[in-house]
């Protein structure tokens, strides 16, 4: 039995519940009661071993319904259909629904699938949900244009708990750009997305995360795949004071494919944690994971990739790779690939590498007249290239490359 120190968790939550109840017109005291059993994870919880939550816990977060005058989004997002949320609130003014599949309100969904990994933050999203949305593609509905889902988090001590459901029925196809940007002085986004990929349906998603100021970003993704389906999620964590991504993919139908890729490039004291679970429940499926990290300054990073291959999941092909390059003597990465295989006729591999930048290559490039800064950028881009090549939507590739370049330039200036 584990003895857990009891804590007074009521104080911050009474404020949070009050703030939530004012905006959502619900009874505060019943909310406080609902939150009674809630506790933040600590580093004694295996699932949270390398990601401290104290700073999230000790802030007095408030919900906000303020909308800004202007957005200033990257031009490369394009003019396609777009859903814009500010601090979790849908903004009709900034959205463009033309060419968009059906959007409806969704009921907050049950949290039973979360019972295996201990994730109270995902529970918190479900306990205090903001208005939730559902994108629903009907049978054989194919959306040609890339749909952007933009989340802007701003203000001081502002919490946002967006919940989104994307449902693709049989044969449907959708490409998504998700752009999550924290611009405020202190913001906490606790997002939850659920993707239902039906039979022979295809969903591709590029998720771009940026965090300025005291930003906290927790993103829970749950994917359920039917037979013959394909799902790809590419996560680009360009900045962020504290970032934790949990992606769980349940492969429930045969002959399906799941791809999870990511790039993270934390600097200064930024912390980025990617936890993935791919659960192969049935036979003849394939999963590929490629995460690459560029660690600068005193940044810390975590990669934990778990792949289950259940007893029935024969002929599974599961590949996982995590590579990290440390650009500083003070950066840390904790990389933990985990494979649990219960079937006997499968092909699975995982690998994790962590190293420094190749000095010989750096010297070679510099000897040709390329500055140290640009040589580093070339080498990091080459390292990131394998993931960039997987991008679903090319229109944001230039944006990601530029952000990487700028981040690396910052490092050279600091030297």
């Amino acid at each position, binding site marked *: 039995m584990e003895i857990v120190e009891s804590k007074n968790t009521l104080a911050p939550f009474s404020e949070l519940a009050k703030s939530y109840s004012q905006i959502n017109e619900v009874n505060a005291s019943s909310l406080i009661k609902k939150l009674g059993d809630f506790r933040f994870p600590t580093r004694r919880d295996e699932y949270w071993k390398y990601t401290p939550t104290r700073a999230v816990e000790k802030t007095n977060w408030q919900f906000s319904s303020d909308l800004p005058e202007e957005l200033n989004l990257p031009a490369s997002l394009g003019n396609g259909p777009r859903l814009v949320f500010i601090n979790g609130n849908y903004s009709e003014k900034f959205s463009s629904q033309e060419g968009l599949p059906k959007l409806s309100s969704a009921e907050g969904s049950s949290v039973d699938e979360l019972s295996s990994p201990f994730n109270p933050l995902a529970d918190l999203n479900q306990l205090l949900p903001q208005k939730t949305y559902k994108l629903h593609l009907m049978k054989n509905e194919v959306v040609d244009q890339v749909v952007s889902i933009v989340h802007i988090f701003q203000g001081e001590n502002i919490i946002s708990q967006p919940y989104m459901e994307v449902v693709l029925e049989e044969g449907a196809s959708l490409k998504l750009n998700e752009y999550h940007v924290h611009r405020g002085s202190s913001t906490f986004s606790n997002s939850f997305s659920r993707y239902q990929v039906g039979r022979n349906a295809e969903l591709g998603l590029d998720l771009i995360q940026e965090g300025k100021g005291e930003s906290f970003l927790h993103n829970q993704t749950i994917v359920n795949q039917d037979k013959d389906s394909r799902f790809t999620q590419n996560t680009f964590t360009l900045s962020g004071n504290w970032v934790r991504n949990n992606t769980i993919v349940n492969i429930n139908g045969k002959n399906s494919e799941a791809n999870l890729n990511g790039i993270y490039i934390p600097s200064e004291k930024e912390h980025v944690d990617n936890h993935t679970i791919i659960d192969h429940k049935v036979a003849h499926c394939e999963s590929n994971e490629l995460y690459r990290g560029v660690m600068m300054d005193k940044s810390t990073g975590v990669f934990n990739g778990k792949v289950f291959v259940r007893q029935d999941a024969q002929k599974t092909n599961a590949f996982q790779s995590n590579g990290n390059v440390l650009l500083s003597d003070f950066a840390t990465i904790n990389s933990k690939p985990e494979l649990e295989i219960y079937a006997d006729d499968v092909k699975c591999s995982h690998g994790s590498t962590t190293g420094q930048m*190749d*000095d*010989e*290559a750096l*010297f*070679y*490039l*510099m*000897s*040709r*007249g*390329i*500055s*140290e800064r*640009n*040589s580093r950028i*070339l*080498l990091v*881009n*080459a*390292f990131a*290239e*394998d993931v960039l090549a997987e991008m679903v939507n090319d229109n944001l590739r230039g944006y990601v490359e530029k952000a990487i370049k700028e981040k690396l330039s910052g490092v050279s200036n600091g030297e």
Partner: protein
Amino acid sequence: MLNITNLHAEIEGKKIIKGLDLEVKPGEVHAIMGPNGSGKSTLASVLAGNEDFDVTDGSITFQGKDLLELGPDERSHLGLFLAFQYPVEIPGVSNINFLKAAINERREARGEEPITAKEFLQMVKDKASLVELDNKLTNRSVNEGFSGGEKKRNEIFQMAMLEPTLGILDETDSGLDIDALKIVANGVNTLRSKERSFIVVTHYQRLLDYIVPDFVHVLFDGKIVKSGDKSLALELEEKGYDWIKNEREKVSA
């Protein structure tokens, strides 16, 4: 153009170059020969600015500037080029893109306009044919999956693209078959001019049949112990490095 005076260099505390003097004037080709471990490649690395080596004494001036004060990139901008003994494979960095970046950084350093796409492509075509480098190779990642000969030809191709005033060839002939050697030598000979000098570091005389040097220096135990014209290379080939060794031992005895 290049003036090396009393150079001392070491790696991890091990002294490799122990008082080396060398002067190279415009248009000259100097061959540096010597047995393994005599410091030939160290000299090439030190000239290019490899930080693995510490220069503990002496000076190097190049084009009137103190070379040791400059980073490898700045040395390149001044017109120095090193053809590596072991060219590095850099997956994900395209040969063409990095060369374009290199040319433009140099142009920027010299206050010149960036090269136009058309100009650059024409240049690639011309210079690649100089060393019979396949188009496919110029577009691939730097040296990735290249054969030994292709890597060396790629070095000469890069040299031709960067048009240095001083080209240093670090054992460019090692591991080359005779056909590849001829191609490489032919490329170098085409680049010879009144303004452009070369330092050819080699273990074998064979290369010097094709790249005929103005001077031959024998490096032994970190110093130039003998200098002469191209006939010195032939004499070395005939008598072997033991000849030098024995002579040195006689002197010190």
